C-alpha cells in the first residue's frame, strides 16, 4: 500500500484516467485502423496472416501502452539505466545466438515471439540519455566527461547493431541518441563540426561500406542504372506513388501492390501502397495524423513538470518524426534505401512494441504531469 502511494503520488486511478490525452489516443487508434486496412490490402483483400498478426500485435501493444500510462513516470525514470543495460545484453545475445534471416542476425527467439532488440534500443536509448541529462547541471552538459559518456552510450549499441548487419536501424539508434544530446543543450558547434567531419569523411565511410550498401547509394543517385536489379525497388515504388494521383486508385485497387510489383510492401514500403490507393489526399491526411500525434507528444512534454519527462517527450516526438520522414523520403526517392519502418503502419512486432512503449511513457508523463523527479 505504501509502495503504491509512493508511485501514485496523490493522483487516484480515476484522476489518471481523466488525465489521459484522448486526442493522442484517438489518433493512435485511427492510425492503427488505417494500418490494419492497409495490411488487409497487402494481403490482397483477404484476412490472411499479416492482417491477423498485425491486428493482434496492435491490440496487445495498445493495451500495454494503456497499462504503462498508469505507471508513474518515476518508475520509468528509475528504470532508465537498467533497461538500457538489459537491451544491450540482448543485443550481445543476438550476436551470438540470434536468428539469421536474409543475411543478418537481428532476432532472438523468446519461444513465444521473436524479438528484435535493436528496435527496442531506439526507445530505451532515449530513456537512458534522458535520465543521464536529467541530473546534470547546465554547465556540465558540455563537459568533456559527459560528452564522452553519452557518446559511449550511443556508440556501443550502434556498433552492436552495425555488425548484425543492419545499417538502417543503427543509424536510427544514433539519431535518437543525438536528438537527446541536442535537447540536453549540447553546444551547437559540436553538431556543426561533426556534420562537417562526416561530410568530409563520407568518401572514406563509403569505401568501408559493404558492396550491397555501396550499390544502394549508387542506385539512389541514379535509379535507372539497373532498373531490374538494384534500382527495381525505388523505381517501382515511385511508379506506385506517382500513379496514385490526386485521389488514388481506390481501396484494394492498387495495381502495383496487388500485382506484386512492390517489394517489401508489408514493412518498409507500406506507405507506397497506401499512397497508391489513397492518392495525394490520403497521403497528406496520413501525414496530418502523424503531425497531430507528434504535436501532442511534444505538447505533453511542454506541460510536464519534470525535466526528464520533457526531455523524453521532445526526443521521442522528434525521433518519431525522423522515422516517418526517413521512411517516406526513402520510398519517395529522396533518400537511399535503408531499412526503416514507418511507425505503427509497418508490419513488425518489435517496432510496434518499442513505439507503443514510447507512447506509453509519454502517456504516463501526461497522467503524472505534476510529478517532479528529484
Amino acid at each position: 500500500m505504501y509502495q503504491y502511494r509512493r508511485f501514485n503520488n496523490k493522483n487516484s486511478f480515476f484522476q489518471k484516467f481523466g488525465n489521459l490525452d484522448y486526442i493522442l489516443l484517438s489518433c493512435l487508434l485511427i492510425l492503427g485502423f488505417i494500418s490494419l486496412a492497409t495490411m488487409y490490402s497487402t494481403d490482397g483483400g483477404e484476412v490472411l496472416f499479416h492482417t491477423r498478426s498485425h491486428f493482434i500485435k496492435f491490440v496487445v501493444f495498445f493495451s500495454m501502452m494503456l497499462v504503462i500510462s498508469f505507471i508513474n513516470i518515476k518508475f520509468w525514470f528509475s528504470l532508465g539505466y537498467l533497461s538500457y543495460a538489459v537491451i544491450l545484453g540482448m543485443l550481445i545475445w543476438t550476436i551470438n545466438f540470434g536468428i539469421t534471416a536474409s543475411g543478418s542476425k537481428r532476432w532472438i527467439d523468446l519461444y513465444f515471439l521473436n524479438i528484435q532488440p535493436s528496435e527496442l534500443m531506439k526507445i530505451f536509448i532515449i530513456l537512458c540519455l534522458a535520465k543521464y541529462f536529467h541530473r546534470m547541471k547546465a554547465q556540465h552538459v558540455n563537459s568533456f566527461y559527459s560528452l564522452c559518456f553519452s557518446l559511449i552510450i550511443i556508440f556501443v549499441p550502434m556498433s552492436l547493431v552495425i555488425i548484425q548487419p543492419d545499417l538502417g536501424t543503427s543509424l536510427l539508434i544514433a539519431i535518437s541518441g543525438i536528438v537527446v544530446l541536442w535537447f540536453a543543450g549540447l553546444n551547437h558547434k559540436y553538431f556543426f563540426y561533426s556534420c562537417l567531419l562526416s561530410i568530409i569523411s563520407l568518401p572514406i565511410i563509403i569505401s568501408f561500406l559493404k558492396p550491397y550498401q555501396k550499390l544502394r547509394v549508387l542506385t539512389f543517385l541514379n535509379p535507372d542504372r539497373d532498373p531490374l536489379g538494384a534500382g527495381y525497388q525505388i523505381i517501382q515504388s515511385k511508379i506506385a506513388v506517382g500513379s496514385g494521383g490526386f485521389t488514388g486508385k481506390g481501396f484494394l485497387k492498387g495495381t502495383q501492390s496487388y500485382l506484386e510489383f512492390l517489394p517489401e510492401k508489408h514493412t518498409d514500403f507500406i506507405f507506397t501502397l497506401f499512397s497508391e490507393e489513397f492518392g495525394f489526399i490520403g497521403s497528406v491526411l496520413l501525414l496530418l495524423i502523424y503531425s497531430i500525434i507528434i504535436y501532442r507528444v511534444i505538447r505533453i512534454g511542454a506541460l510536464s513538470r519534470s525535466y526528464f519527462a520533457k526531455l523524453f517527450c521532445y526526443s521521442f516526438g522528434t525521433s518519431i518524426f525522423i522515422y516517418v520522414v526517413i521512411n517516406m523520403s526513402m520510398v519517395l526517392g529522396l533518400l537511399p534505401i535503408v531499412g526503416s519502418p514507418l511507425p505503427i503502419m509497418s508490419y513488425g512486432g518489435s517496432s510496434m512494441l518499442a513505439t507503443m512503449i514510447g507512447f506509453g511513457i509519454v502517456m504516463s508523463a501526461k497522467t503524472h504531469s505534476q510529478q517532479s523527479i528529484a
Partner: protein
Amino acid sequence: MININISDSATKLNSLNRRMFILATAKIIILGGIVSRLFFLQVKENKKYLTLSDKNRIREWKLPPVRGEFQDYFGNTIAGNFEAYQLHIIPEEVEDFRYVIYRVKELLELSEKQFKKIVKKKNEIKPWETLIVADNLSWEKFSKINNHLYDLNGVKPVISISRDYPYKENFTHVLGYVSQANENDLLTNENIKEKFVPGLKVGKTGLEKSFEQKLIGSNSVERYEVNAYGRRISQLAFQKGDKGETIKLTIDTKIQELTNELLKEKAGSICVMDIYTGAIIAMHSSPSFDPNSFVFGISQDEWQLIRNNPMKPLVNKSLSGNYSPGSTIKPLVALSALENEIIRPDFTVQCKGHKNPLELYGQTYHCWKKEGHGFVNLREAMKQSCDTYFYEVARRLGVDRLSVTAKKFGLGQKVFKDIFDNEKKGLVPNTEWKKNALGRNWVLGETIITGIGQGFIQTTPIQLCLMTAQIANGGYKVYPKIVANDKKLYADKFTPLFKNSRNIKIIQDAMFSSTNEVRGTSYRSRLDDPKYRFAGKTGTSQVKKITERDRELDLKTFQIPYEERDHALYVAFGPYKSPRYALSIIIEHGGSGGTVAAPLAKELFKMIVDRHEIRKNYDNKKYLDI
C-alpha cells in the same frame, strides 16, 4: 542553494524550449518538403507514372495475323488458309514441364530428334512466350491429345490458321511459298518485325514475298493484366486484327493446269499473255514442287531431293531462265531490217544448205538444213526458218540497229519491273555493250550469229512472250500485268513501236505461213479450224557449238547426252483472224522447236480460245453466280 538550483534548471528548461522551437520550425519545413514531393509525384507527374504503371501491369499478346488470299481471274482461291491443328505450351503455366513434355512425346510418338528440337526451342524463348510443340497435327493425334488433357496441365490444343495451296505445284513459281519467318526476314522487312509472333509464316519467294505488305494483315491482340512475374491475371481486351488483302491475279487456273500437264517430266516454261491488256493468262515453270511442304518446314530429305534435281525445280524458268532465243528472234530481225529499209520483202538470198556453208571473212556459217532452201525471199525464209537468209540480213542490218528494235520490243529489260525479285534482264548485245563489258571490239561474225538468235543474246521466256504479243497486236507497246486490278497507268502504253504498220503485217503473215503452210517449220502443229488457227515461229537454240563431226553423225535428239541437247522454243499468237493471245514455250534440252515445243501450242490454243469466251462473259458478269 535552492536559488542556484532553480536558476540552473531554469537555464536548462530555457535551452530545451528554445531548441524545441528551432526543431519545430525545421520539422515544418521538412514536412513541407515531403508534401511537395508527394505533390510533384502524384499530381504533377501523375500521367507519366500512370503510364509506367500500366506498362507494368498490362502485357499484350499478339496472335498471328490471318494472311490474305490469292485468287485466280475467276475468283477461285489458289492460295488460301486452312485450319491447322496445333499444340502450344506456355512454359510458365506448366507446373512440371519435364513430365508434360515426356507425356506429349509419348502421345505424339515424337522421334528423339524432334523432341530435342522442342526442348532446345523451349530454352530459347521467354517463359511466358508460346512454345509450339506441333504445328500441323493429324486429326487422330489432335483428338488423342484432347482426350488426355486432364493429364497434361498447361498444354493447349489450338486450331490455328495456316497457308494452303490447293493447286499444289501448279502455281508454285508464280505465288512462291510461305514458311517460318527467319532472322533475315525480320531484318529486311520492318513490317514483319512489327507483326512477328512465334510461328509467323511469311512469303519467301514469288508474289507471296513481293506482296507481303498487303497480304500479312494485322495481328489480333489479347491484352492481359499480368503480375510482376508475368503470370496472366485477367484478360482486359481482345482486339481483332484484319485479314490481309485478297489479291486477284489474271491467271486462268484451267490453262495454268494445262501448262503444268504439258510440261510434265520436262524442264521448261510456258507463258501465255493477253496481247492487248498484257494480262498473264498462264505462266508456268517446270519442274515444279509442292509449296505446301514448305509451310511447316520441309524435311531435309525432301529438300535435298528438290535441290539436287538436275532439272532445277527451284528456278523459275519463265522469269529467270536466260536462253538464246534461237530462231524465235527472226521475226524481230526481219522487222528491224524492214523498218530500217535494209531489205524489202522480196529480197532474195540463195541458201545452199550446210553442205555448202556460207563463207564470210574466213568463217563458215551453216544453215540447219543439209540440202539448203535454194532461193528464198523473206516470207519463205521465215516459214522455213532459213538461217542463211538471216545471216545475210543481219550482216546488212548490223547489231546496233537490231538491238534498238529488240529493246523496243522489251528484250534486255525486266518485264515485271519489281514484282518478282528473281526476274532476270536477259541481254541484248551491241557494239558498245561488248566494249564496256568485255573490253573487246565487236566482231562481224557475232552480228551474223545474232541474226539467228545465237551468241551473246539472251532472253527470258516472258520476254519472248511479250515480244510476240507486241508483234501480234499490230506493234503497240503493252505492259504485262499479273495482278487483276493493277491500275498502274503507263504514259507510253499502246504507243506504236513501228515506223510502218505494213512491216508488222508482213511479219505476222510470215509467222502465219510458218505454221499453216506446207514446209512451214511448225506445219504439223497447225489447227485448221479458223476459230483456233494460230501463227508462230519455232526456235532451236544450241547449247554448244556444233562441230563438223556432229554434222556428219547427224544424231537424233535422244542419242545426245541430256545436257548437250538443244533447247526447243516456240512463240505464237492466235487466233490468227483477230489475235488476242500470245505465248512462248521453252523446253530445256528438248531438241527441235518444231517437233517438241510447237505441238504444245496446238493443245494450248484449243483451250485458250475456248476459255476466252468464258473470260469475256465473266468480265460482263454473266457467270457471276457460278
